[in-house]
């Protein structure tokens, strides 16, 4: 009977802790969600109110029609983010596999080299990067952004995929090789299915990073029709000398966060599937 009670106590403790933590984690976002429906005046009330007294959609309307229209910017951001995800997954998977599985001479040096982009802050690299892009002819071009974002998220992605492949026991693959499987087939049919959590992780982070990035987009894009959503938000929320339109800021955060949440919910199935598949025995 004691073990049953211990189990129940443990269960209660687990739920209790998880719940309290969940409230703390959600609080900032909930606060934003509530404030978007306040009128501009109430949004800056002193002292602040918790719930809006009047529901208002003023901020939404302003956001929708700003500049060339929100749908345009959303499409641009979607293009850039999707491209980044695809390119990053392909490159990180191949590179991670190469480094983890195919222990060729120089693998460690290559690994370190692929990690270096994350050690230089983007603000410092931007002017030089812009000069290079202009030379290639990819400035003011969304594809140029895709390439830049991929390079910046590649270190993390290669690391994750390398680890994911390294965790797969060699025996599984060696068995495949004995059976005459070529390297590429071995990757696609044997290793990849076991590395789904890694791929999901890489895809998620590639999406979030590229969706929310501001500074590189600002420097690289010059025509309004190419702008991504973060640029639009900066234009409409930061006013004179840095003064902030708090109401618009909340709406902007809500609108940009929503697609990310959707992507997250979509991809986490693969994540969970990979985890629940039980990983590896023995």
């Amino acid at each position, binding site marked *: 009977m004691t073990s049953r009670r211990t189990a129940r106590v443990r269960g209660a403790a687990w739920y209790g802790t998880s719940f309290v933590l969940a409230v703390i984690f959600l609080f900032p976002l909930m606060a934003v969600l509530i404030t978007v429906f306040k009128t501009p*005046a109430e949004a800056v009330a002193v002292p602040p109110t918790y719930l809006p007294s009047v529901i208002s959609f003023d901020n939404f309307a302003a956001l929708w029609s700003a500049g060339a229209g929100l749908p345009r910017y959303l499409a641009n951001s979607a293009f850039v983010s999707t491209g980044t995800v695809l390119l990053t997954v392909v490159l990180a998977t191949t590179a991670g596999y190469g480094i983890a599985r195919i222990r060729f001479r120089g693998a460690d040096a290559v690994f370190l080299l692929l990690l270096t982009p994350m050690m230089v802050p983007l603000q410092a690299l931007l002017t030089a990067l812009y000069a290079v892009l202009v030379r290639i002819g990819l400035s003011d071009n969304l594809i140029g952004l895709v390439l830049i974002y991929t390079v910046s998220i590649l270190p993390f992605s290669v690391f994750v995929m390398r680890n994911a492949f390294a965790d797969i026991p060699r025996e599984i693959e060696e068995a495949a090789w004995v059976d005459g499987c070529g390297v590429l087939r071995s990757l696609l049919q044997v290793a990849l299915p076991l590395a789904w959590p890694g791929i999901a992780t890489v895809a998620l982070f590639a999406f979030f990073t590229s969706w929310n990035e501001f500074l590189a987009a600002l420097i690289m894009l*010059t025509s309004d029709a190419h702008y991504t959503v973060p640029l639009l938000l900066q234009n409409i929320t930061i006013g004179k000398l840095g*003064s902030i339109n708090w109401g618009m800021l909340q709406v902007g955060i809500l609108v940009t966060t929503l697609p990310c949440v959707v992507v997250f919910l979509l991809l986490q199935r693969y994540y969970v599937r990979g985890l629940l598949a039980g990983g590896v025995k023995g």
Partner: protein
Amino acid sequence: MHPRYRIFSVIAQLSVAAALVVAGCSSSSTPQPTQAATQAATVAATMTAAPSTATTTACKGITFWARSDTSPFIQPLVDAYNALGGPRVELTVVPAGAAFTQKLGAALAAGTAPDVISLNLVYAPYFASKGQLADITDRAKALGYVDQLNASELRVGTWNDKIYALPFTGDASALFYNKTLFKRAGLDPSKPPTTWAEILDDAKKVAALGGGVSGYYFPGSGSGWNLFTFTPYIWASGGDVLTGEGANQKSNLNTQPVKDALAFYRELWTSGVIDPSAQTDDGTSILTLFEAGKVAMLPNGAFAYSEFKSKFKNLDYGITFIPGKNGGKASFAGGDTITITAATKCMDQAWDFVKWTTSTDTQTKYIAGAGVVPIRPDAVPANADANFTTLIQAMAMGQTPKSVVYSQLFEDPTGPWATMIHESVFSGNIDQQVASADAAWNAIIAAGAK
């Protein structure tokens, strides 16, 4: 080698070669503005009104950058110009702030800068001194009305006696005061303060009302904001923060008017009439409390005028000039100049647009009509209310510091200007702060003059 592997290795070598080629061994053609191609179809021979027909160059369109501060009124202005026929102006609104200059600089360095820029006037000296702006002296003088345009903006747009930028929009600083709070405190809302002593007095009366209401507010951690709103106190008292220009420029901080102004703000703070949040505000929340009706007096900018008009109609407020110690008045003349980049290939068309933006008609309809202070006195609408009229007068008498190291002197939030104000007001060691800021400024100016 097994044929399969040979193919792979060939592909590998080709990719490496391609990467090297792309990385810079080739000479790529200078990228044309992508907009130009789409403009080709719209070049019409029929010109109805203003734009001149002087051009014979193959210019298809003009690229025009404006900062986000102008977004309420800039699109209608550009649309109106485009509706007149002739080469199209393609507008891009760029987020304002430090990133704007970085973006512009990167574009200039790479040869992708726009033809025309609505440039914050304080940056004009820097870019002019580096040869990035086109010399429009002769064209400007040929206009015949260049001396009617705002004098301070024009001065800042001039370098080595040549004109590089013309005034485009105005933005003056002035003292905003809440009439409702004034009445509640027993003050006459039609008689705002005209000396520092009166400001202090009125602030105390309002603060005595209690209930979270404060008599005065300013961004204690602000840099650019305080240049905009605090410097006029020094000017109105007969002082200045800088002397000279270019190679002769020197800091003028270690002078009595500056110390007096800091002492004045310190007194406001120690009297408890300023809301405590001023200490950390760098401008992000400067309007918040005033809009909530919790602040009696706030030195503010003309841009707030149109903001209040559209969003805070119930706010009963007045505008008066920022006074000097014993009277007098001053203002910071801000806003955007309009300028043409030196590298432009569309000089005539760009000039046509620039000329049009400074005409009386345009200024009245699209600048003053949008609640923005115009840069010529004959552009004032007939139905201007008292507040707008005050702002226009403030603009006309306004001053602007002119320096090629403007950003480092005034904008850096961790720079000597911001530190001096913050420490003097909230900690009080004014003499020491002023001396060290003065030395730091001279060092920055000397380094920038190299």
